[in-house]
């Protein structure tokens, strides 16, 4: 609803000023962090309620013994503080989260924080290595495909990607195992064996299949999205003008198209990285990879409530963090959004 007056030239847009800009950035960033914290807090409620009040954990742990072994039931109930009201229990648990006290594992009777420390690192390494492999692969395929748009090589690539995108990660994983370690070739280990105190990457060969599975599960999707954004950008008016201005095609691709296709690419990568946080559950179980996913499935089987709570909070935190980084990156790379904040 701004009004265009004839002598408009100068005063239409207030120039963003440096100092004001910095303050605006700080406040935007604070808001964004606040939002992330709020999300995590709501997640914590969800996790706590889902694990400890929807069903009866004690009954689940003891199974048929629940009615028979009254003493054990009572002991578990008090260890899980189930005799206290839900809100008190939750607040107690939340307080523990802040002080680093994640509770005690029911299965092993050891502090949760002690049990999961190295697994968190292992999972982060797995996700990070997968991302480092996946991003250039996905972008490369997308650019190759966009270059051949709607011609034979593009169609072939797209068909392959579409097929891969439909496969659940455990299907991909087992097929890889069958081909590379058990049935066809015997090149790579099918499971990750880690000596006590060691790390999975001590034997790099053992990392190959888990990483390959995650990359194959995620890259097709990312690649397809990046390709379609690239095509959209290549059809835009400003790319047409750049061509009509006489700019060589490779400069058009590099400076005009790729720059504008990057932001949607980052967002989809973030979404997929976050999705990897869930994907590791299946992949780690498949390869016995000692990460949080493997541990989570094990804990769920054992109805180890405290472990599940801690591990799912960690996975949700990874997700929120990745999203936060992606948001900041997209804003920094989009001039319109950037100037909207600083002015």
């Amino acid at each position, binding site marked *: 609803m701004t009004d265009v007056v004839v002598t408009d030239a100068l005063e239409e847009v207030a120039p963003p000023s440096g100092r004001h800009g910095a303050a605006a950035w700080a406040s935007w960033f604070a808001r964004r962090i606040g939002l992330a914290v709020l*999300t*995590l807090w*709501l*997640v914590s409620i*969800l*996790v706590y309620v*889902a*694990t*400890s009040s*929807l*069903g*009866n*954990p004690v*009954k*689940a742990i003891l*199974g048929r013994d629940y009615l028979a072994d009254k003493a054990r039931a009572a002991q578990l109930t008090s260890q899980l503080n189930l005799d206290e009201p839900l809100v008190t229990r939750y607040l107690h648990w939340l307080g523990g989260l802040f002080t680093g006290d994640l509770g005690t594992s029911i299965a092993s009777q050891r502090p949760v924080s002690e049990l999961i420390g190295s697994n968190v690192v292992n999972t982060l390494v797995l996700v990070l290595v997968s991302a480092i492999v996946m991003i250039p692969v996905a972008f490369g395929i997308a650019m190759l495909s966009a270059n051949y748009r709607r011609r034979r090589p593009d169609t072939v690539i797209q*068909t392959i990607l*579409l*097929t891969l*995108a*439909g*496969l*659940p*990660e*455990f*299907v991909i994983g*087992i*097929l890889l*195992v*069958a081909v590379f370690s*058990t*049935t066809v070739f015997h090149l790579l280990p*099918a499971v990750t064996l880690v000596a006590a105190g060691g790390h999975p990457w001590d034997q790099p060969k053992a990392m190959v299949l888990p990483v390959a599975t995650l990359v194959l599960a995620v890259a097709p999707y990312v690649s397809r999205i990046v390709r379609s954004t690239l095509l959209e950008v290549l059809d835009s008016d400003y790319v047409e003008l750049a061509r009509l201005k006489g700019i060589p095609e490779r400069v058009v691709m590099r400076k005009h198209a790729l720059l504008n296709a990057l932001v949607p690419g980052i967002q989809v990568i973030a979404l997929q990285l*976050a*999705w990897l*946080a*869930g*994907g590791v*559950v*299946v992949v780690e*179980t498949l390869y016995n990879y000692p990460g949080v996913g493997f541990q*989570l*499935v094990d*804990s*769920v*089987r054992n*109805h*180890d*409530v405290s472990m*599940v709570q801690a591990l*799912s909070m960690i*996975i*949700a935190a990874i*997700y*929120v963090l990745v*999203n936060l980084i992606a948001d900041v990156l997209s804003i920094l790379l989009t001039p319109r959004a950037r100037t909207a904040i600083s002015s």
Partner: protein
Amino acid sequence: MTAVSEPTPGPSPAPAPAEKSTLRRALDQKRFTVGLTITAIIVLLAVFGPLLAPHGQNEVVGPTFSSKGLFGTDYLGQDVLTRLLYGGRVILLISLFATLLGMVLGVLIGVVAAYAGGWWDEVIMRLNDVTLAFPQILLSLVVLTAVNQPRAWIIIILVGISHAPRVARLARGVALGIVSRDFVYAAEALGERRSRVILAEVLPNMSAPLLAEAGLRLTYSIGLVAALGFLGFSTDPNAANWGQMINENRLGLTIQTWAVLAPVLIIGLFTVGTNLMADGVAQVAQRGGGSE
């Protein structure tokens, strides 16, 4: 302004795109028909499989991990082919209902948020973001911690609910593009009831993208339900179930590959089929599901 880029007006030359339903136009797509064929075959196999099975699903027909029969025997010596024919129904039914639940819930949340706008929209979508911070399989696992033996309906609800926020986000996006169109304002100005505006004006214009989303959600449902089986969380430990079959026979992968590969391949084919269908519909939806 180029004549080329304009759609051919006039009833004469070719039937205008909007005259054909989304499904009819999807059928013109090769990937859709291929996907449909694969899906149909596997659904038929899953539904009528038990009638064709040579043995009972818990009948021991030979030694463990032997090569007796088409796909050999499994870890208990049960016939893999038989269990394969029995094991689809559960996955199919649970996936279908979970998809249905997720779609209904998600569309409801998304469209209401888009149509109501403002404060409502803000709250609904903020809560939605929270559930999005949860990888889908995680939600099921967290709840299953406190459950001893999951029933089918629990898995349906868990998978369905984990779809809902994702569907809602898409539905809201699509609906936002429609509720701001003038024909919705026109209905408002006439004083149409809100429910009628949603049902008669907004929803029909969302059918193509929603159909594509349903296909995608079905693909994910199958993957999730099978993955839960693979992780050892199935409704009945004795009954055959493709996902669980993989878990049961994993240790025998080197000796009796088919006991694992057969269920893996059939799940893979199934999801590839539904995904191809979904993408076929999505292609149609993208070319303007009769809305432009």
